[in-house]
């Protein structure tokens, strides 16, 4: 039996000016019941994509469907079917948590009795029952995020967009949100579109993943498959002395047996190599014979950051820093 498509994008583009191409032609096809991770550094176009898919922003070109409905022509119906928690927990500080949920439910035309029951249930679920009647301005950042998630779920949507839901949260709050996402996905078959800049979050939560950079999708697949595609171990050799030494080391390591790719970074050289455990000795020996001073050597299995590095030539954190520098 084939699974229906929950979210579809074809050639989706958003240009704010001819120079600012936030999203530059992306295609997505996300099945119902999936937790889809949208990973990328700040400024890569994740939030703009979410804003287009949730009807907040009109695409410059291309088209998108959510729940089988066109996001431009059937925007009102799309809004009825989705739940959204945006990057900044969009709340009204002067209301209490319970009042905010009640208003949210009433704006979806739910009857008052149902709204009250649903709000109480969700306040329990996100562990805010004790604080429900306090003004939101007294809530911590984690409490606001949890309340925002509850607001997004008030009308029991089957497709939920979470834009960086755990950014800035402490590990306990982060874990609480992850477990709620998993529970809703498993028990209520809710499809999640979750943007994140955290590798661990994408790795642990997402069934499927797209990696975004500079408005383009640079890799797509399950986290396991993306990491397996690298097909090698990752040996990182820290060489602090000079750029010239790192370039020379990279040249030497490219010729090493089993070496599939070599990348030069700010203070190190990364070697993608088969059977990395055995290769370490050969790497150190080769560099030592060439009088290159090695400060540290580490061996890891591929991570999503390695996938990003392989596709873009940058670590995800470095790409975020570069994007911030570009925008400032």
């Amino acid at each position, binding site marked *: 039996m084939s699974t229906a498509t929950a979210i579809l994008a074809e050639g989706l583009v958003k240009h704010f000016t001819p120079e600012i191409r936030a999203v530059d032609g992306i295609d997505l096809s996300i099945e119902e019941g999936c937790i889809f991770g949208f990973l990328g550094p700040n400024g890569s176009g994740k939030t703009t994509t979410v804003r287009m898919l949730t009807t907040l922003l009109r695409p410059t070109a291309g088209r998108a469907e959510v729940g089988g409905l066109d996001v431009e022509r059937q925007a009102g119906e799309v809004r009825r079917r989705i739940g*959204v928690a945006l990057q900044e927990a*969009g709340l009204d*500080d002067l*209301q209490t948590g319970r009042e905010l949920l009640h208003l*949210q439910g009433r704006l979806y035309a739910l009857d008052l009795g149902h709204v009250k029951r649903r709000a109480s249930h969700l306040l329990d679920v996100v562990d805010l029952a004790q604080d429900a009647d306090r*003004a939101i301005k007294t809530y911590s950042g984690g409490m606001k995020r949890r309340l925002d998630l509850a607001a997004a779920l008030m009308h029991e949507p089957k497709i939920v967009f979470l834009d960086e839901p755990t950014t800035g949260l402490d590990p306990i709050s982060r874990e609480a949100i992850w477990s709620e996402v998993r529970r809703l996905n498993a028990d209520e078959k809710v499809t999640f579109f979750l943007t994140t800049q955290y590798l661990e979050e994408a790795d642990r939560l997402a069934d499927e993943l797209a990696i975004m950079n500079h408005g383009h999708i640079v890799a797509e697949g399950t986290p396991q498959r993306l990491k397996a595609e690298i097909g090698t171990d990752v040996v990182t050799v820290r060489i602090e002395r000079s750029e010239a030494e790192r370039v020379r080391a990279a040249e030497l390591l490219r010729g090493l047996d089993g070496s599939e790719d070599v990348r030069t970074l700010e203070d190190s050289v990364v070697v993608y190599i088969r059977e990395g455990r055995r290769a370490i000795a050969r790497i150190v020996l080769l560099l030592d014979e060439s009088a290159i001073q090695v400060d540290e050597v580490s061996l890891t299995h591929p991570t999503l950051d390695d996938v990003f590095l392989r596709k873009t030539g940058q670590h995800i954190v470095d790409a975020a820093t570069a994007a911030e520098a570009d925008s400032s």
Partner: protein
Amino acid sequence: MNALLSTFHLMNRGLREAMRQPGVELTNIFIPMFFFAVTVGAIGSVAGMAFGVDNFLAFQMPVAILQAVAGTSGSAGLGTVTDIERGYFDKLLLTPAPRISLLLGRLSADAVRAMGLTVLILLAGLAAGSGMEAGIIGIAAILVLTGLFGLAYSAIGMAIALRTGSPQAAQLSFLIFFPLLFLSPAFAPKEIFAGWLEFLATINPVTYILQGMRHLILEGWSWGSFAGALGSILGLGAFTMTMSFAALRWRTS
């Protein structure tokens, strides 16, 4: 039906917000009451001789009312900017509530607040001896006019807030009110104005709102005066609501 219900729920939210910021309402009532008292105290005794207005307290009461209403409009814009800055406006845009409700909800709350302040000013004026020739009907008519003027005038603050997203700009609507007030017969009948000022007062909608309210207080019920005031408010409202919708369309494009 959904639009009406959504407007009602958002109006309730606006009123809750107002009740939780009593300082804002105190400012909105203090400033007009202060000017009301000072103006009547300074000019009241000579107004009859100077320009033939014997009951200057009643003559000034509509000015205080309109000042209070204009004050609430500044906070309407500010409230919208706060929603935009906090991301709550996006949250509201993501609900299926009709767009018109997002505007009318807050504007209706401002209209109710404006009527509340009007009741206080009317009570103060009546207690001080202004009188009300049109009786209870006059009070009801003034409340209707005030509510509609609050709705229409707050839409200016809303339009500026939606277009700029700036808290400073959002309060401009209150400042815009002062030229409108001073270019109307706020402090003296326009018949004694210089020609150019009389012309400006004649094309100023605030003139007809003031005259309509004054007629109810000083002379009694008149369909003509009430219709003049109502027509001015509706004309102003058509213009300001169009601006607000255009600003909302711009923000969501």
